[in-house]
């Protein structure tokens, strides 16, 4: 079915027709927007609705993600952060990514994936340090096996391939999941990453969060492929599409892709259909390029309310759990408020400290120049006081 010998040796691939690389005919959905279970007929895999404990955990993560988005948006409005790319309404993709990975696996996120970064266990203030503007990053990727949120589109997909390739060469069973958006699928690095992953048969799951817009440009201007998941076929890996606001379906589809990768089945591509409910960032004005009526259509498809309805109707959501999730989310929101309302003074001397493992003679000279300027400024301040 593909020309890669290892692909053909994987039991899950053996004997399957080429058409298996194609995504299911409709996006996989296990819980409908009204909160009812839909069954799993007609998809290319017999995806199973995750058990109640998993869904309750996922619900808790969605509550956390939503609260973090709301709090961060508020802090931007209050001028405590320079910028925040909100993921309100599309948190389920990030939650599914986190829940499908082990701690020893790696995640490579984008700038809109702060919820996923927190879900990997990153300290909230470390996760928000770059958004506050103190430095370009705040956490150690190796501590959390999580790449830094990447701004140049699709470039992180190749880093994911490299991490997976190194792990494979050492015989480790690490899986790498990397996130990108619909706009990123137009970038050259998207193509190169998927092709490299397939050629080297490395354990990477590419999860496209198709939120319909790249800032103002709609999907139709990025691609006229039948779906973004269809692009997988050209690389010789399976593609799948999934309702990106249905956490149950995401857990089933992404979980399947991760286990495939872990067991030697190679890379795969998942396209999650979701919607960016807010502007690109606080600096954007979405009313210039889309109607309120269009946004309103997505309100009832909300991932959080949908899962809440399902769990409530099925009797799986204990009041104590709901209270605990709300309290946990509120605690993180308070951490963010307290942390971002505390004045910090980034150290200008650090500008020169990390460019090379040892500062060059030229950087030492420039560091001295800045230090002298600052010292002179301070003594001037002292004299004027």
């Amino acid at each position, binding site marked *: 079915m593909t020309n890669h010998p290892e692909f053909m040796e994987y039991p899950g691939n053996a004997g399957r027709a080429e058409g298996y690389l194609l995504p299911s005919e409709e996006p996989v959905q296990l819980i409908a927007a009204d909160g009812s279970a839909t069954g799993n007929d007609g998809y290319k895999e017999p995806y199973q609705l995750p058990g109640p404990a998993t869904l309750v955990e996922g619900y808790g993560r969605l509550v956390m993600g939503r609260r973090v988005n709301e709090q961060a948006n508020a802090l931007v409005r209050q001028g405590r952060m320079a910028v925040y790319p909100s993921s309100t309404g599309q948190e389920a993709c990030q939650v599914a990514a986190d829940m499908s990975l082990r701690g020893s696996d790696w995640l490579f996120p984008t700038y809109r994936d702060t919820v996923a970064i927190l879900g990997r266990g990153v300290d909230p203030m470390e996760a928000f340090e770059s958004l506050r503007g103190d430095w370009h*990053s705040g956490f*150690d990727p*190796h501590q959390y096996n999580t790449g830094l949120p990447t701004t140049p589109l699709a*470039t992180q997909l190749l880093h994911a*391939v*490299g991490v997976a390739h190194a792990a494979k060469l050492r015989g480790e069973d690490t899986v790498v999941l990397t996130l990108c958006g619909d706009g990123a699928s137009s970038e050259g690095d998207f193509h190169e990453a998927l092709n490299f992953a397939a050629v080297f048969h490395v354990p990477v799951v590419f999860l496209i969060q198709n939120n319909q817009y790249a800032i103002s440009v709609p999907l139709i201007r990025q691609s006229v492929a039948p779906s973004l998941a269809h692009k997988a076929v050209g690389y010789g890996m399976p593609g799948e599409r999934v309702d990106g606001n249905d956490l149950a379906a995401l857990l089933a589809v992404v979980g399947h892709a991760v286990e495939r990768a872990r067991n030697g089945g190679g890379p795969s591509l998942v396209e999650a259909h979701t919607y960016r409910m807010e502007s690109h960032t606080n600096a954007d004005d979405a009313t210039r390029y889309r109607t309120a009526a269009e946004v309103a259509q997505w309100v009832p498809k909300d991932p959080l309310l949908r899962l809440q309805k399902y769990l409530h109707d099925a009797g799986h959501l204990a009041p104590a759990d709901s209270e605990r999730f709300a309290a946990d989310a509120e605690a993180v929101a308070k951490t963010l408020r307290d942390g971002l309302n505390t004045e910090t003074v980034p150290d200008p001397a650090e500008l020169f400290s990390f460019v090379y493992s040892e500062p060059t003679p*030229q950087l030492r000279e420039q560091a001295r120049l800045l230090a002298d300027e600052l010292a002179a400024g301070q003594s001037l301040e002292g004299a004027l006081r």
Partner: protein
Amino acid sequence: MTAMAHKPQPQSGTASPAAEPELSGMQTLTFAKALTLAMADSMAVDPSVLVFGEDVGTLGGVFRVTDGLTRRFGEDRCFDTPLAESGIIGMATGMAINGMKPVVEMQFDAFAYPAFEQITSHVAKMGNRTKGKVRLPIVIRIPYAGGIGGVEHHCDSSEAYYVHTPGLTVLTPSTVTDAYTMLRDAIASPDPVIFLEPKKLYFSKDTVDVDALRARYGAGSTAPSTIGRAVIAREGSDATLIAYGPSMAAALAAAETAAAEGRSLQVVDVRSLVPFDDETVCAAVRSTGRAVVIAEAPGFASMASEIVARIQERCFHSLAAPVLRVTGFDIPFPAPRLEKYYLPGVDRILDTVEELQWEES
């Protein structure tokens, strides 16, 4: 079929004696072979060193610089990639994040441009972005510059793009010894290195003591790194020629001709473009009071401009004349039959030396 059966595997043991005789003692090596030896010796002592790129495996590279590495170390350690330079650098970045030391080849100078975003936005910035928590020990080998009658896109002097990007170390050797030592230093560096290999030097030869070269990297060695250190390639007292990589041969030939005409020219091989060795270069210029900077790249906003600026800033009171440049013209690299008009040559260098405001004698 086993998982690995489709890959070329190393023959028995770590080395295949028939295919790859172990070099030792005094050897006459080409510049290219010294580079191969540096990679092989690095791979032998450090299993995290990997070599990959286009045609570097079975073929051994279009210039044969990786010849024998796949045979000796196996397809997992030296392998061909799809034809995609951004993919090569991006994958190398991920591998370096995950404990490997990739040594990648860009095949030709101008073929590296598709990788520019990965190099400038990630390779160069990762150490600073993470406050040193993630260093990327990647070596990006680039066959570079002209003088071989190459067609378009095969002869660019692209160093200015890299030296202008903070976070990159940029090296270019010009001797067989430096080919070996500088590449080993590059591979050992915790920082990413752009390693510019002058194509026209690949088949230049020298006789070197391989054991002595290796001893620099043995246990307890205190040999200093070549990174950040310029060298005096020829002593002289009347004026200083400052060159590097592909322009060194012309600089040395000019000094030889000048000597016959009674002018003693000192020649400095910059070799480490970043970090730049102000100390050695300035001491050399102060010792003669006159300087000409020679580089093949277009002169406008170039490495040569930077060297001139640094000398004027630091050595003004020691100068008897303005510092002049002999560079490529500000044009795209010419077609093969026209390159001789473009490349800095002995005559143009000596004409420029004559302009250094010599007192009538």
